[in-house]
C-alpha cells in the first residue's frame, strides 16, 4: 500500500506541475514538415492544444506556433525532440519570457433587435469589428489573448452563438529595449 500512496503522490505532483507552454519555431517551408512536427507529438504521446502555421517573410521558412500542456521534464523532452528534427531551424518556449501572444476568432452571434445595442457595445469595449451583418446574425472579428477571447465568448453566449471559428495562438518574442 505504501508504494500505492507514493505513486499517487507522484501523480498528484505531475498534475500540479503541468503548465501551458507556447512554443514558436521556424521550420523549412517544405512538404511534409508539418507532418513531422505533428507526428512527433502523436508518436510520443505529447499533447497539442492549438497549432498555427504560416510562411514568414522568407518564403522558404514557415513559423509554427504550438500550445501544449506539460510538466517541466516533459517540456524539456518536447523541446529537445523538436530541435532534433532536421527541418526545425529555431525553437523558443515563450511561456516564461516576455512575448506578445494573440488569437483570432470569427463569431457568428444571434442579433435579435433587443440585443443589437448590447452586442455593439461589447464589440466596442473589446475593440472587435462586425464584419458581416445579416437580418438575424452578426459576424464579429475579434483578436486578443486567450483570456480576452474567453471573456468575449462568455458575454456573447447568452445571445446565442451560431458558429465560431478560432485560431490557435500565435506569439512573438518582444524585442529587447534599445540600450
Amino acid at each position, binding site marked *: 500500500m505504501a508504494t500505492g500512496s507514493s505513486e499517487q503522490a507522484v501523480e498528484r505532483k505531475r498534475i500540479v506541475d503541468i503548465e501551458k507552454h507556447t512554443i514558436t519555431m521556424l521550420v*523549412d517551408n517544405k*512538404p*511534409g514538415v508539418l*507532418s*513531422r512536427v505533428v*507526428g512527433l507529438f502523436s*508518436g510520443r504521446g505529447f499533447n497539442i492544444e492549438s497549432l498555427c502555421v504560416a510562411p514568414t517573410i522568407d518564403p522558404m521558412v514557415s513559423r509554427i506556433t504550438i500550445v501544449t500542456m506539460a510538466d517541466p*521534464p516533459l517540456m*524539456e*523532452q518536447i523541446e*529537445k*525532440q523538436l*530541435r*532534433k528534427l*532536421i*527541418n*526545425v*531551424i*529555431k525553437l523558443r518556449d515563450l511561456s516564461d519570457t516576455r512575448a506578445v501572444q494573440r488569437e483570432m476568432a470569427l463569431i457568428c452571434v444571434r442579433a435579435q433587435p433587443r440585443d443589437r445595442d448590447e452586442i455593439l457595445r461589447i464589440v466596442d469595449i473589446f475593440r472587435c469589428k462586425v464584419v458581416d451583418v445579416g437580418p438575424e446574425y452578426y459576424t464579429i472579428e475579434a483578436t486578443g489573448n486567450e483570456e480576452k477571447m474567453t471573456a468575449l465568448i462568455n458575454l456573447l453566449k447568452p445571445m446565442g452563438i451560431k458558429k465560431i471559428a478560432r485560431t490557435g495562438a500565435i506569439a512573438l518574442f518582444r524585442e529587447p529595449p534599445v540600450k
Partner: protein
Amino acid sequence: MKLSGSQILIEALKEEGVGTIFGFPGGTVIDIYDALMDTDIHHVLVRHEQGAVHAADGYARASGKVGVCLVTSGPGATNAVTGIATAYMDSIPLVILTGQVPTHLIGNDAFQEVDIVGISRPCTKHNYLVASTDDLAQTVKEAFHIARSGRPGPVLIDIPKNVSSGTAEYEKLGPVKIKSYNPKYEPNAKQLRKVVDLIKTAQRPMIFAGGGIILSKAAGELSRFARKTKIPVTMSLMGLGGFPGSDPLSLGMIGMHGTYRANMSTGHCDLMIAVGVRFDDRVTGKTDCFAEQAKIVHIDIDPTSIRKNISVAVPVVGDCKTSLKKLNSLIDKADLGDLTGIRQPWLDQVEEWKRAHKLAYVQKKTIKPQYVIERLFDLTAGEAIITTEVGQNQMWAAQYFHYDRPQQFLTSGGLGTMGFGLPAAIGAQTAFPDSLVVDIAGDGSIQMNIQEMATAVQHKLPVKIVILNNGYLGMVRQWQELFYQKRYAATCMDCAPDFVKLAEAYGAKGLRAVKPDEVDSVLKEGLAYNGPVIMDFVVEKEECVYPMVPAGEPITEMLLV
C-alpha cells in the same frame, strides 16, 4: 555533364565511397539496376527486402561504414520497414533507396504505390521524396551526411521512376551544410571538470557503457579511462565489445539478463558514469530504484537521450570519443595518485558478488544451449563476428561469448527483431569476406528470414548458423513458465523443418548434434567448412535464461538459477 537520374545516383553513391549495395529489383527501380550493371559497385541480391535492410545493417555494424540498400516501390518499400525500424532503434547509419511511381501518378493509388515517406517518417532519422532529377545529387549528399553524423541513423530516399529515368546536369558537390542540423561533438569543459571532481571523491564508482561507444569508435578511450581510474565497467547489450569482456574490470552485461555483479554494482554504486547509453527499460528495471545511491553522469551526443528516462546529476552533451578523450587528459592533469588502495574495498565487493553468483548451468544428458555457446567461444578463440536472432539465443550469446573488441557482436537491441541474425551475418560477411561470421539463432527466429540462405549460397558467403533448437519460442515460453502458470500459449514449435535437409536443399551444408559429446565435433566440422553451414543443436527444451529481473522490478531483484 548531362546524365540520367540513375547515373547521377550511381555517381553520387561512388562519391560517398559506396562499394556494396544490398537489394531486390522491381518496376520502379529498373533504370537504377540498369545503370548499376555498368559499374563496379557490388550488388548482393537478397530474397526478401527485409533481408536487404538487415544485411546493409549488419554490413554497417561490422564495418562502421554506411550500409546501403535498394528496393522497389510499394511492397518492396513496406517489406523494408521492419529493417529500417531495427536500424533506427539501434542508431545504425543506413541509406535506404526506394523506388516510387512516377511523380504524375503519386497520390493516384497507382500500381505498387505506397507513401513510404509517410510510413517511414517515425522510424528514420530523416527521409526524402526526390521531386526532380535536378535535386538527386544534393539529396544523396545530405542523406549520407545525416546518416553518419551526430547520433547515426537510417535515412530513406524515395526516388520516383521518372526521376531516375530523367536527365539532369551533374557535377561533383562540395561538403554539405544543413543550417538546421549541427550535431554537437564538443562537450562542455565545465561539465567534464565536474565529472573529474566526482571521480576524486567517489568510493564506489562504475562505468556504464552503451552502443554509443561502438558507434563513435571510442573503445580505446574507454579502456584508457577505466584503467586509469580503476573503475569497473558494465555494458548494455548494445555496448558489448565496447570494453573487453575478458578484462578484470569488466562486470559483464547489465539489465534484465545482466550478470549478478553488474546489477548489484548498479544498486550499490555511489557514482555512475554512463556513456553512450539511453537507459532503456530492459536496462533500468524499475526506474525509481535504478542506481538510487548514485550520482549519475550521462554523456551522449543526443540531447533527447539525457533525462528522458532517468534524471542525472551531470549531463554532458557530446560525442563519446571526444568526451572521453578530454576526460582522460583532465584526469592526467588532475593527478589522482595511486587509486589502488581507495578502490580495493569496492573491487573486493564486486569480486565477492562475482563469486557468489556466477553465470552457470549444469550440463546433464541433453545439450545445454549455454554449453554450445561456451564451446563456440573456446573453439573460435573468441575471434568470430557474432550476429544473433532475438530471444533466449540472443541472451545466451551475450552472456557466454565474451567480446573483446567493438563491432564484433551484432544484435537487434532496441527493436528486438527476430530474423535479424542471418541477413546481418550475410552483411557482415560481405564486409569481411575472410572473417569467421556466426549467426547464433533459435529454431523459431531462424525461420523468419531463412530464405536468405539462398543469398549466402549464391554469393558464396560462408556464414555459419548455430541453431539452439529447443522446439519452443523459448523466451516467451520462459515468461509463460515463470509468470503465466506454464500455460504455453502458441509457443510450441514442434512442426519445424529438418534443418539439416533444409540446408542441403539450399545447397549449403547441414550438421546436427543431439548429445553433448557431439557438440565439439559438429562445431569443428561446421566452422572449418568453406561455405554456408547450418548446425542444428537439439538442446534442453525448457532451459531458462538467468539471472532474470522480472519486467518493472528493481534491477537488484533477480531470479537466479
